[in-house]
């Protein structure tokens, strides 16, 4: 029942998105323009500053993720169907999980584009240890989206929600950014530093467990009117 509801929410959003591709295309375009802006800031005499690629990758993920998060509940708000969704005889946490899965799929696609692009533009050896990089990206994305989806959901009814989302979100997800950037930077050098990367993956895993649990636990009371 729980996972079926989550799956239905995901399927509904995917079906709407497949009609216009609005969120996906704008998010991807924004991610690419982020990379370009940072490349002007961090490239000196034709060469990128050391470790800049790791920072740019994670900043692009965080920024484009924020943009996408701001619109996860936008369609419900416009159609005024959020209340109907919340009234459905289904566990509310399942709605959260469905939205979370949608965000994860979206950011996963953005990362598929960002990683090769950054590897290409900055001559970064991002593919030296592909499994570790995937683990870092997965851990970081889950942590970011878990907190972000919850905050986006609770801001649906708030005034000036577009401004408040990053204000609330960024202080909380700083550990994700630290772990993601440091872990990716460890993989970048001439000899990838595997133990350091694995340690940061551990930090991300612990963060994900705590914050997914906390979000599932607080979603129900937060969405009560």
């Amino acid at each position: 029942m729980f996972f079926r509801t989550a799956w239905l929410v995901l399927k509904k959003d995917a079906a709407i998105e497949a009609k216009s591709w609005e969120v996906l295309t704008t998010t991807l375009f924004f991610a690419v323009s982020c990379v370009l802006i940072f490349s002007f800031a961090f490239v000196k005499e034709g060469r990128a500053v050391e470790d800049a690629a790791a920072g740019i990758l994670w900043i692009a993920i965080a920024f484009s993720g924020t943009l996408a998060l701001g619109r996860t509940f936008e369609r419900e708000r416009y159609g005024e169907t959020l209340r109907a969704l919340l009234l459905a005889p289904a566990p509310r946490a399942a709605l959260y999980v469905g939205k979370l899965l949608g965000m994860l799929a979206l950011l996963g696609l953005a990362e598929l584009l960002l990683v090769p692009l950054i590897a290409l533009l900055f001559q970064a050896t991002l593919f030296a240890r592909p499994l570790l990089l995937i683990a870092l990206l997965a851990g970081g994305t889950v942590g970011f989206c878990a907190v972000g989806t919850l905050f986006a959901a609770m801001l649906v009814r708030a005034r000036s929600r577009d401004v408040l989302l990053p204000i609330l979100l960024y202080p909380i997800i700083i550990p994700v950014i630290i772990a993601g950037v440091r872990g990716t930077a460890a993989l970048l050098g001439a000899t990838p530093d595997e133990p350091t990367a694995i340690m940061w993956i551990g930090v991300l895993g612990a963060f994900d467990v705590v914050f997914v649990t906390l979000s599932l636990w607080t979603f129900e009371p937060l969405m009560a009117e």
Partner: protein
Amino acid sequence: MRKVFGPFCALTGLMFACAPFLIARAPYESTMGLVQKIFYFHVPSWFAMFTAIGICGVASLVHLFRTSPRADRISEAAAEIAVVFGLMGLVTGPLWGRKAWGVWWQWDAKLTIALLLEMTFISSVLVRKYGGPGSDKLASAVGIFGLAVVPFVYEAVNIWRTIHPLTSVVPNLPATMGLPFWFSVAAYMMLLALLLMLRVNLGKRQAALDELYLVYED
């Protein structure tokens, strides 16, 4: 509450007036000399901030799951007070750091956490101010998440070795330094209690006034 407020206020004022004399009479620390004395105000302000964060976290949990306006007022007051005491710590810290480390700021574990917590609680104050109706629950969620994020930042930033004096300094203070230190801590805690009482009372009056307006409009 109202009866004890006056004497309590006077006592706190008196303690803050006495503190400089006690601090002046405390011995100089052997390596840092005069600058070390900021510690009598710097550390207690962090103690007060963490107490306020603890109060805010508990009150937020109660409000989120039980919807109690009283707990909400306490969590609102505690969040604002945490910001104030955090600001005191963030101002006094760099003043000391400039002399002891030669730089105003270091990306050290404790400093980063302090800054992050300050940001988190400022964001909860902002959401209350600009979030419109329903922002009380949002702010309580931020309070709870802010509390949960502390160990992660600590773990994450600890990798860059810490140069901040250790917390183990405090229990091993010699009596000549310990007395003014704990006196300052007591004064700060009383100031915290005082501000909390004032702010909660203000919130209560505001709620009463709003209710009167509603009745008047009907």
